[in-house]
């Protein structure tokens, strides 16, 4: 009798599994030599211990007693001495903080002259210099970390630099909207172009330019490119070869056009960062309140979604970034927090 009941219960369960409503693991296929990973919504390691943030310090958001007051902190990088440089998008100023978050000084500011910035969103620190993707002025601004401006760099491949990193001893410069050419380019230390990463798709309609809206994160073996408005993440090797593409199941109501294509109305991805092991952390928007973006999901270097790593204790993340010591810097624009990432036992 028990056996019959067990068999009868197994049938609906197998139906549920067959209908795909429970997909526990990522599905990996290969297409033209590219690894294609279709991830479940919660990840392969959703039941394993998650991570937890331990706040080391947080700025108050008010400009008092050596505390930085940001309007829209959008990016941060650290030097070898542990100092942190923070770019405020609203003022285009870069504030230098010591390792404990106290203000040491300010650099740059909005303008068109040498050393001034416009619409900058990213910079990178390298050997005592800050290289700023000076998008509105169409150049790479070079500043000593004391603030002194050096001759800027003009790139024929990237007219409006949006992103800049140092990776594998080279510079990587990307476009936030990629209309033509490639999404990002790799340059030697003396600014000779080495390769283009991810060629642009043909733009058939003006709205297609929105589909190229992207943010990138470098890792040791290549560059992650996140389409900010679509559910698509790709990784390209430094030689320009596409390594993988991945996604996360989203039960979101995306508006669609007459051809069934998703209209890029809602931000899917907000920001990303890569830890020292090469794992990718991605901040996702929240489908029930698309202005909210604080859930961080973690992908393995091979594109498998591992799990929802943690939720940032802010409503809307403008940036997340691992510093050189492996601590996480994150901001909601007004405040900046430095936290260590701990595995929950």
């Amino acid at each position: 009798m028990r056996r019959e009941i067990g068999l009868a219960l197994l049938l609906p369960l197998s139906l549920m599994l067959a209908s795909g409503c429970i997909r526990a693991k990522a599905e990996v296929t290969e297409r033209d030599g590219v690894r294609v990973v279709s991830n479940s919504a919660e990840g392969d390691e959703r039941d394993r211990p998650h991570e937890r943030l331990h706040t080391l310090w947080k700025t108050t958001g008010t400009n008092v007693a050596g505390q930085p007051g940001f309007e829209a902190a959008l990016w941060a990088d650290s030097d070898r001495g542990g100092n942190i440089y923070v770019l405020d998008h609203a003022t285009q100023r870069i504030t230098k903080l010591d390792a404990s978050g106290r203000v040491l000084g300010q650099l740059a500011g909005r303008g068109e002259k040498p050393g001034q910035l416009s619409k900058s969103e990213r910079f990178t620190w390298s050997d005592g210099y800050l290289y700023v993707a000076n998008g509105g002025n169409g150049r790479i601004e070079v500043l000593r970390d004391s603030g002194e401006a050096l001759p800027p760099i003009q790139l024929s491949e990237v007219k409006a630099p949006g992103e800049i990193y140092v990776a594998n001893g080279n510079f990587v410069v990307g476009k936030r909207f990629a209309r033509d050419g490639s999404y990002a380019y790799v340059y030697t230390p003396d600014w000779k172009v080495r390769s283009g990463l991810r060629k642009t798709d043909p733009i058939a309609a003006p709205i297609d330019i929105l589909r190229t809206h992207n943010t990138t994160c470098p890792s040791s073996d290549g560059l992650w490119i996140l389409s900010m408005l679509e559910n698509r993440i790709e990784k390209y090797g430094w030689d320009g070869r596409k390594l993988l593409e991945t996604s996360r199941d989203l039960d979101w109501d995306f508006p669609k056009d007459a051809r069934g294509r998703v209209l890029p109305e809602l931000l899917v991805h907000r920001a990303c960062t890569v830890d020292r092991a090469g794992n990718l952390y991605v901040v996702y928007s929240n489908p029930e309140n698309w202005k909210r973006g604080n859930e961080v999901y973690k992908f393995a270097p091979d594109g498998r979604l591992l799990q929802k790593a943690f939720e940032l204790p802010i409503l809307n993340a403008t940036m997340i970034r691992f510093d050189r010591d492996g601590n996480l810097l994150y901001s909601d624009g007004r405040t900046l927090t430095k936290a260590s990432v701990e595995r929950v036992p």
Partner: protein
Amino acid sequence: MSSAADWTRRILIGALVLVAGSQVYLAQQNRALKQRVVSQSAAVAAVADAHKPPDRSAYEASMQGQCQPFFETAAPKNGKRYDVSIYFSLERDCMSCVTDVVRQWNSMTGQAAIDVHGYTRVDGTRARAVLEQELRPLFPVTEIDDLEVKLKAMGVQYTPVVFVSDAATGRILFTHAPLPSQLGDRRVLEKLQTLIQPCA
């Protein structure tokens, strides 16, 4: 015989359990569907709100009759009778949206003493190049720092926005650009004529 009855009983119980299991499964699916419908409604509402145009006519109506509010005091220039001030954003507005408005008002300048003037914020050399190459040939433009922020503080949520004022007094007479079908239409100017009143 008893074996057949036993099998019949087993089949019946099995069928009952199968039906019960299916019901549970269906109930779960139904609940998930309901949750999805709720979240879809929220997302659709958020998208609709994000793209809902602000109540332009109410704002414009509130501005008519006021005196020139933005950045310049009224002063007749070279005998011009009307000031057409076009506030626009090089960041957000499509270029053709701005140039269409400018061309519409430029088309009126042959019929009346109209001074068409643009105001915008220039952020970066790339925006300056667009301004110099595409817009300055059409009309004079004055740069205003943080224009979008200042307009927003005044209640202007969108650009380009047009204010036509009496050059002598600064009173705002008209806030619309003429429709494309009204290009060069004298009735637009006649309407302006009727609106001129001393500014309090």
